[in-house]
């Protein structure tokens, strides 16, 4: 099918106000989010043939029938804010399929569920649930602008995962358009359902490679009535690392437990001027939530664990303003690094929570070995770190890449994963075989081939050229 015919067919389906065909406008779809967004080498090599914004699962089904029959690649896309090149265009004649018009948002307090379209920005779900005294807990840093469709497709994490889990834990059902245009429904609003294979969870985290999610049933929980935050300041990096698992087994489950190393403390303080301890080796930022009557006791418990490990100082935030001040520092981690180096790579590996001291040691060691500046922050409480590999030029980039690869390999040797929240995307495909081994990896490619035999759904994502 030639371009003109395809565009005419797509226009018939979505209407001419919902298709982008102007070459100059299509060029804007070659970018990928992240610190490297400006590098020409990081841009997608192919410009899409068209970008469409269907308004229903039926329209998407019609589009997929054409794509499947004629072999056009299709990449589903929300805000394209994913940090693992999740929507990179890797093939010619790709149709970019925006989910931004699918914005259904219904809260059903009686069943503790929300039914939403993939184009809803996650914060809107939180706001809508909040009106009923309910909470949708997952909070990736991007929740103010990323869509729930993208969150589900990447199984997005966030700060509160340590207590509440990732997006996956809240997905109860889906409507999905398959590669050939069939529309299926998985899951339901039941709290318990053990029938058969869990297809819902198969699609969660599949990054648009198995189908296009067109509706999502989410679980909600009662909104915790109160919270408190605290900062624990450590002179010793490994003591801070050790404190993480000690706190986690102390009987208190913090709702957030974040870590920042000295490089980050200094960079962030330069931005926010809040009196962060610039001479400390590390800080832990924690929050507890729940019944106000128990929070003081929890703060005390955490404090005493930290004291046992030689904490230098503990600052407790009680009012909403004080709590926000604590988190302002954390929010500024990634942007503040632009003060340390021109560019950087950041990752999202994880390991079991008791291995944090080793991880921090290893990162320092590798940085020294290759003379690369590194920094580290992350969701220490759930074992998910954001190591940063900093560089100012191409030559440093090469060395930084070596540090990154060796660090990821190390994470796998201690029972970790290369991605705990951003997804594999097109970024981490090279690590996948190592993480899964040939048999498990073969099962995954087999599932992909079963559901998308022509490899038209987000080709390149998860598997690279291995299909």
């Amino acid at each position, binding site marked *: 099918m030639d371009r003109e015919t395809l565009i005419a067919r797509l226009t018939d389906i979505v209407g001419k106000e919902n298709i*982008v065909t102007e070459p100059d*406008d299509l*060029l*804007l779809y070659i970018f*990928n*989010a992240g610190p490297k967004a400006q590098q020409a080498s990081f841009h997608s090599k192919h410009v899409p043939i068209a*970008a469409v914004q269907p308004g229903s699962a039926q329209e998407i089904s019609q589009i997929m029938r054409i794509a499947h029959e004629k072999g056009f690649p299709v990449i589903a896309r929300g805000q394209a*804010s994913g940090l693992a090149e999740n929507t990179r265009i890797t093939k010619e004649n790709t149709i970019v399929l925006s989910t931004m018009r699918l914005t259904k948002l219904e809260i059903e307090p009686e069943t503790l569920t929300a039914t939403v379209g993939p184009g809803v920005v996650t914060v809107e779900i939180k706001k809508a649930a909040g009106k009923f005294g309910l909470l949708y807990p997952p909070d990736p840093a991007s929740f103010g602008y990323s869509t729930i469709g993208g969150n589900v497709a990447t199984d997005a994490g966030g700060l509160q995962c340590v207590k509440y889990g990732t997006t996956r834990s809240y997905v109860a059902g889906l409507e999905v358009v398959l590669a050939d245009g069939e529309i299926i429904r998985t899951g339901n609003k039941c709290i318990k359902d053990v029938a058969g294979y869990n297809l819902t969870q198969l699609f969660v985290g599949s990054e648009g490679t198995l189908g296009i999610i067109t509706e999502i049933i989410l679980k909600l929980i009662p909104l915790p009535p109160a919270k408190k935050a605290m900062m624990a300041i450590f002179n010793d990096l490994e003591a801070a690392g050790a404190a993480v698992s000690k706190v986690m087994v102390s009987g208190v489950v913090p709702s957030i437990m974040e870590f920042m190393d000295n490089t980050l403390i200094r960079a962030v303080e330069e931005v926010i001027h809040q009196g962060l301890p610039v001479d400390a080796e590390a800080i832990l930022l924690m929050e507890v939530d729940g019944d106000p009557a128990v929070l003081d006791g929890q703060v005390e418990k955490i404090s005493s664990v930290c004291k046992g490990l030689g904490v230098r100082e503990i600052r407790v935030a009680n009012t909403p303003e004080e709590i926000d001040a604590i988190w302002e520092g954390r929010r500024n981690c990634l942007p503040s690094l632009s003060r340390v180096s021109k560019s950087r790579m950041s990752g999202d590996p994880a390991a079991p929570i008791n291995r944090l001291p080793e991880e921090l040691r290893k990162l320092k060691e590798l940085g020294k070995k290759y003379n690369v500046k590194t920094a580290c922050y992350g969701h220490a409480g759930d074992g998910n770190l954001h190591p940063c590999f900093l560089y100012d030029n191409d030559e440093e980039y090469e060395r930084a890449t070596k540090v990154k690869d060796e660090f990821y390999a190390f994470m796998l040797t201690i029972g970790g994963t290369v991605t705990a929240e951003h997804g594999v995307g097109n970024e981490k495909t090279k690590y996948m075989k190592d993480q899964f081994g040939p048999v498990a990896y073969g099962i995954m490619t087999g599932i992909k081939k079963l559901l998308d035999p022509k490899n038209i759904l987000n080709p390149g994502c998860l598997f690279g050229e291995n299909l």
Partner: protein
Amino acid sequence: MSNQYTPLRELSAKCTFCGVCHSVCPVFSKLAVESSCARGRLFQTRFLSDEKIRASKHIAETVTRCTLCQACAAKCSAGIKTTDLFMRLRKEIYGEVPMPLAKRAAFTWMSYRALFDACLSYGAPFQTLLFKEKEDGAGWVSRLPIPAAGLNLRRVIPKLASRPLRRVIPEVGKPASGAVKAKVVFFPGCMMNYVYPAAGKAVFDILVKNGVEVHVPKKFACCGTPAITSGDFGTGRILAEINTGLLSAGGYDAIITGCATCATALAHEYGMVLEDSKAGPAWDALKGKVQDFTSFLCGLGYSKDFREVKQTVTMHDPCHLVRGMKVAKQPREIVKAIPGVTFVEMADADRCCGCAGTFSAHYYELSRRINDDKIDSIARTKADLTVTGCSACRMHIDDGLSQRGVPCKTLHTAELVARGYGLA
């Protein structure tokens, strides 16, 4: 490679394509395509600099399809001053592609201050040639569609005042008794001058009532916003030089506005158009004195000598006030101080109403769709009255309320305060 877009490319180079701009953009909320929001436009700038794309009528269309509401600039995680950058981008693009004739003609007209003033001052009797009254009394609707002027048959616009503000208030207002607390110059702007003189009079009267000596020079030109935001920095500069001259003379303690857009032009945008002008140093000296009348009153301390005004009131924050001038608390504080006023906050009060001056002329249907969200917010408050500190927002909201049949009136914030003082 380097061209006129290269400096702009450098200003945009920190964009990480994160997409936070999408979530706050009123235009993206309706169109949802990459070319409709800041992130895409920043990368367009890059391509113009690299000469991977060329300025064209189409590119000009996409870069003007923005309300310049500053929501993206306020949220940008890389701190990019998107709105300023987009005005500069428009300037460069219109250096290569001709600006639509209607805009060019209008800006030329505006730069001839006396002619512009005469037409708008004496134009009222001739309005019926073009317009007819809408049945609900909300204003005029056009007899003919005039797309170049943004007039479509359903757009409701206010009538041109039969007497401009200049003929309603004196050139100098002095407090009746007591010490003069400050000597200020009041810059009313075109909307208050020619369309809503009652709002201008309200600002004037409120200031005098609060012990302020107010000067209103007759020869102010348009602040220049329509030209500057459209990229016509040449016209903007002519107007900025006229106004800077008038504002610098007289040794005023403060420059007071009742129009958020004028305020932002005087305080910020003149910096762009006066970059190498001989009026630059004079502007540098006065820019810090520009204040919305509400923030000025809160700083000065204002009389609480109010009478009761029994109204349920909600407030819309104009983009140029809340983000341009960082003023949002002050008008609320004053309005809430009036006894009898029940203040109801609307959802997303600081979201753009879709007017954006020339934007609503060029993209009327799109500006209406954006405005629908605002009207929904207002309707949910069930308020009798929406007040706002920008006459253009007020006009656009009035249009929306009338077309949607929502029973809520609009006033400039100053008019409500003047009622509280028993001045109107």
